Structure formats: structure tokens, C-alpha cells
């Protein structure tokens, strides 16, 4: 819907707002990454879904519930007065595609965080971004006790396009998380110039 709001003529100058998604399986470090680069502790917002918004197979055991609350953690990075980047962690429950569509709409791109001990947990995210033509990179979060796989092995296991960057990271470290975001933005810029006129996400 486009009705009922005006462009910022005169008055307050509004910043250009941009958004990056941080996806991956439960407990892989999405909120940690958001928190390590954002200017404040991650914020939490909720969407209340009615039954019809949720995959029909997943209501076993919650028959008495008519609504479900989906929580999203996000952070903000301001660059001066006129540019803001928001980082949104996608809800861990991969069945809430309705919420993913809403988050992906207008996003620059996505970071898929992976844990090599549970690599399959990030498959739904990879599938989603491939299907929606949203540029993404894969960042392997290095957990201390995890066996190290080579990045080529990870790439092979995920069977992703060879152009998709795959990198190691430590989501707790600000410098590492900064590298992840920069790698993604450079990848988005490259994909954009290659594709000419990419499909907008979420359409």
C-alpha cells in the first residue's frame, strides 16, 4: 500500500534506511553478530500471526492457540544523519515464511551464518535467498569446539553458486562482524552490476 504518506518535503531530513538480514539456524549466533556491530544492544520486536499465516503442518500440540508470536532481534548502525543500516536476525523457526517475506522485502542482502557441526540448519536459509534472488554470503561462525572444515568443503556441502562468498567469522568479535558485512555489501554491489536489473526481493 502506498497511500496516506508523503515524501519528506521540507521539515526534518529523513535518513536513507537500509537493511541486511542475518539468517541461519537456531543458536548459530545471529543475535550475537547483530549485537557485536550495532550501536546499542539488540532490540526485539514481535509480530503476532494468526493461524492462517503459519504452515498448517506445524500446529500439532498447539491446537488451542489461535495466534503465535514471532520475535525478531535487530540492531541499528547510524552513519551520520542521513544513512542508517538495520541488521535483522530472521526468526529461528524456519516455518514463518510470512515473516521472512516481510523482512526480505527491500533488503540489500543477507548473511547466512553457519555452524559446521550442524550445517544442515542453514539449508532453509540458503534455499530461501536463492529462490528469492536476494544476494547472500555464507559466514561460518567458528565455535571453539567445532571441527574445522575447509571453506571449499562447506561450499560443496551447500552446493551454492561459486560466486557466493563463503568466509570464516567470529560473531562475537566486532572486527570480524564488520568484515562479514563489508564482504556482503561488496558482493551485493557486484551482483547488482552483473545482473543489471535484479528482481527485487520478496516479490
Amino acid at each position, binding site marked *: 500500500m502506498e497511500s496516506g504518506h508523503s515524501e519528506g518535503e521540507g521539515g526534518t531530513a529523513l535518513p536513507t534506511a537500509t537493511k541486511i538480514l542475518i539468517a541461519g539456524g537456531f543458536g548459530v549466533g545471529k543475535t550475537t553478530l547483530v549485537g557485536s556491530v550495532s550501536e546499542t544492544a539488540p532490540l526485539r*520486536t514481535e509480530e503476532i500471526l494468526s493461524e492462517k499465516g503459519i504452515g498448517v503442518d506445524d500446529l500439532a500440540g498447539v491446537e488451542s492457540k489461535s495466534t503465535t508470536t514471532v520475535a525478531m532481534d535487530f540492531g541499528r548502525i547510524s552513519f551520520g544523519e542521513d544513512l542508517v543500516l*538495520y541488521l*535483522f536476525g530472521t526468526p529461528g523457526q524456519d516455518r514463518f515464511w510470512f515473516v521472512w517475506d516481510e523482512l526480505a522485502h527491500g533488503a540489500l542482502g543477507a548473511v547466512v551464518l553457519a555452524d559446521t557441526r550442524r550445517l544442515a540448519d542453514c539449508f532453509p536459509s540458503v534455499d530461501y535467498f536463492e529462490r528469492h534472488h536476494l544476494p547472500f554470503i555464507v559466514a561460518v561462525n567458528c565455535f571453539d569446539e567445532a571441527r574445522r572444515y575447509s571453506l571449499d568443503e562447506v561450499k560443496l556441502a551447500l552446493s551454492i553458486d561459486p560466486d557466493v562468498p563463503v568466509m570464516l567469522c567470529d560473531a562475537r568479535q566486532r572486527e570480524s562482524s564488520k568484515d562479514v558485512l563489508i564482504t556482503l555489501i561488496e558482493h551485493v554491489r557486484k551482483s547488482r552490476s552483473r545482473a543489471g536489473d535484479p528482481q527485487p526481493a520478496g516479490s
Partner: protein
Amino acid sequence: MAMPDSEPLWVDDAAGPVVRPYAMTRGRAAAQNRFNVISQVVAAQPAPALEVGIGPEHIAIVNLCQRPLALAEVAAHLGLPLGTIRVLLDDLLARRLVKVIEPKPHTTLPDDSVFEALINGIRAL
């Protein structure tokens, strides 16, 4: 076995909102708008007084948005679901109390400047 602590205590935030979200929206579950979660909300006027159709939550949004904030930030700061904020924004827009600016689709940006600014900005953090 001691039992007294087994009953959960529903106090403060754990008890949930005292006023249910649909009460604030006078029963409306769906907003007219589908604003993006990063749409910028900014007050167009100082906060109005309470009146018919303008509740405390409307006033809280106008007060909060004296500087621009994303829809998701408004929701997080007020502790209300996104859907509730969207409905309240419908009311505020009808009274021209706020402006809401949707993000530009980045695919239509004429040049690289936003990408440049983001990369340089993140490096400098």
C-alpha cells in the same frame, strides 16, 4: 518435595500487557498500510492531547518520533507488536500527526554511492 515455587509468578512484563493490543487498536487486527519494518516514522507535529480516537499509545508514538525512527524501533521501544503499530500509524497518518517514508528500493538507486557510504562507514566503526 517442596512445592511452593512450582507455580509460576506472573508479574510485571511476564504477565503480558494489561491492555491487550487489540484494545489499543479498537478491535482492528489489520492495518491499511503494509509499511516496511525499516520505514522511517517521524512526527509532523508536537504530540496532541488525549481526545476521542487518540489514545496514550498514539501520543507515545508522536513523542518517540520527534526524531525519525524505523517502524520496528517504534514497536520495540513501546513494547507493542508490529501489527499494532501499523494500525496506530493509520490513525496518525489520517490526522497528519506523523509522516512515514518507505525505503527506496535499492535496485532503483542510480549509482553506487550508498554502497560506498555503507562500506566506508562500517570500516570506520
